[in-house]
């Protein structure tokens, strides 16, 4: 028999209770937690360590996708998204073979999801699962234009950083520093991977280890051997590779702040 520890995250009390009731009726499934939003879930997950997460997509604060994006546990728990209506997300789930349930949730359909995700949890293939989850999150239509906000896990809390608040991003080995005015947030992601997710009209990689927000560029100065220096409105100076200087100047000319 299947033996799964599951967690439910949904902001609607009745929907949450309903899903818990359905899950508990399923043999071998134990509900180890039910949370009303992503922040509560992230705080609680450290403690309960479930095998599977049932996550509502539409939630206030961080939505279901952002919650999964902020998960750091290894291995990643199995994830089943729950949604009332979202045709684009559904296509993305299917393309990436990620489980999902539609509301109203039926016992029968829930049973199928449990069996499938149970097989994943028992089997190996975590690398594949992680990859398809990453592909799902990247391919979501609302992110095609670039992430509007970044989710940073800090001690004891989740910080949501709107990308328009970021002055520049400094890359280090396996993480990067988001410089937002006087604040600096550490993001566990490489600069190259982050660059892929950001809106390319607003952000530009000017150096192996730096991305700047074009809206915050105050001036571009000449430096040694054709290199340049970007002077941000905050006064910070960021080096520009010779090969990117021309592109930077061109993009600054074309850039219109739409915020």
């Amino acid at each position, binding site marked *: 028999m299947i033996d799964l520890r599951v967690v439910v995250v*949904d*902001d*609607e*009390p*009745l*929907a949450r*209770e*309903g899903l818990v*009731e*359905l899950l508990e009726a399923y043999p071998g499934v134990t509900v180890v937690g039910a*949370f*009303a*939003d992503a*922040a*509560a879930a992230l705080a609680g997950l450290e403690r309960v360590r479930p095998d599977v997460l049932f996550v509502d997509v*539409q*939630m*206030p*604060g961080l939505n279901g996708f952002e919650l999964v994006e902020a998960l750091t546990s290894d291995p990643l728990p199995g994830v089943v998204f729950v949604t*009332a*209506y*979202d045709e684009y997300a559904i296509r993305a789930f299917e393309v990436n073979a990620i489980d999902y349930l*539609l*509301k*109203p*949730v*039926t016992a029968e359909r829930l049973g199928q999801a449990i069996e499938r995700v149970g097989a994943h949890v028992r089997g190996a293939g975590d690398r594949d699962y992680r990859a398809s989850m990453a592909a799902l999150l990247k391919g979501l239509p609302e992110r095609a234009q670039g992430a*509007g906000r970044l989710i940073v896990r800090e001690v004891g809390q989740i910080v949501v950083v709107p990308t328009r608040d970021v002055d520049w991003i400094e890359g280090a080995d396996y993480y990067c520093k988001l410089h937002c005015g006087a604040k600096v947030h550490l993001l566990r992601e490489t600069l190259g991977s982050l660059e892929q997710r950001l809106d390319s009209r607003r952000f530009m990689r000017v150096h192996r280890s730096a991305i700047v927000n074009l809206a915050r560029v105050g001036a571009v100065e000449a430096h040694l051997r054709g290199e340049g220096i970007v002077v941000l409105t905050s006064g910070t100076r960021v080096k520009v590779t010779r090969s990117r200087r021309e592109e930077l100047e061109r993009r600054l000319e074309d850039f219109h702040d739409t915020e």
Partner: protein
Amino acid sequence: MSATALVVVLLRSLQLAQMAGQTGAQVGWKPILATQASFWVTWSIWAGVSVPLMRRLIEHPPRTILRVGSLIGLALLPSILVPIPYGLIHWLTFGGGQSFGFGYIHTATHDVITNVLLGTAIAGVTYGYLGLQRARHLEVTAAHLNAQLSKAQLDTLRAQLNPHFLFNALNSIAVLARRGQAADVERMVTQLAGLLRHALESSKEQVVTMRVELEALRQYLAIEQVRYRDRLVVTVDVPDVLLDRVVPSLLLQPLVENGIRHGFVDGSQPLHVAVRARVEAARLILSVVDDGPGPAHRDDPPEGLGLGNTRARLAGLYGSGASLTLAPADHGHGAKVTVVLPDRPL
């Protein structure tokens, strides 16, 4: 116009000089040219001046008697005006004993038939042409407005049947049914039916009484209350005297839904929403206030609906007589949507 006038002037002068030559009268070509020029140039100037006057008459038509009077005036006025420069030039060029008055009376009476015919012809042609132009313009505008209205209707219908709301409501009903809460299921299904009926009818009826609108809002809120329980606190404060006022149908529900969608900050803090109505200076003022994060924190409008649709509908119904504004709520946090309508009792 002036080129035609010039050709007419030259031809007519040539003809007159020839006629004068045949009768043996001694007339120089200069006076003939001058008087003829004054005659035809004055007419072409008149034709130019009468166009804007006529356009004004067509676009802002006065009462019938005045309109007919103005048309007759425009037809006859040149018969009095045209001889003035003619008489003046006649007097200046021929000189001698002929006074200005003589020249004026002479041309006014001598050319009266020509002048009346020309004046009437010009007035008639201008009136006909401009009238036709105006009618075409009105037709195009009406078609445009109609298209806008049907699009707004379609959008409203789509907004009213917000699939997200609908499926979440159905999910709640399924949960209640599984628990065997038959009475709750029945109530919720009835409320949903009432709301759907109101939505479908509102695509036909653009306006309803406040009473009907509030009933639909209550049905909507009852469903949301089942979904969110004590996390959602809504107060509706509309004085009884306003219940027979006319409002666009399904105006309030999307506004409240918008407030709920953007108002929650997380899964536990309660959200307060207040719906109010009052009359002030012949204006009906409706407001939906929430204590959520406020308009500055609203992300992109999800599902492309939101306030733009309502705003377009108001413009279609009232033109510039109605407005919708989104602002931070007075108490510092939260959003306030204010709709101002012309106050129309049933």
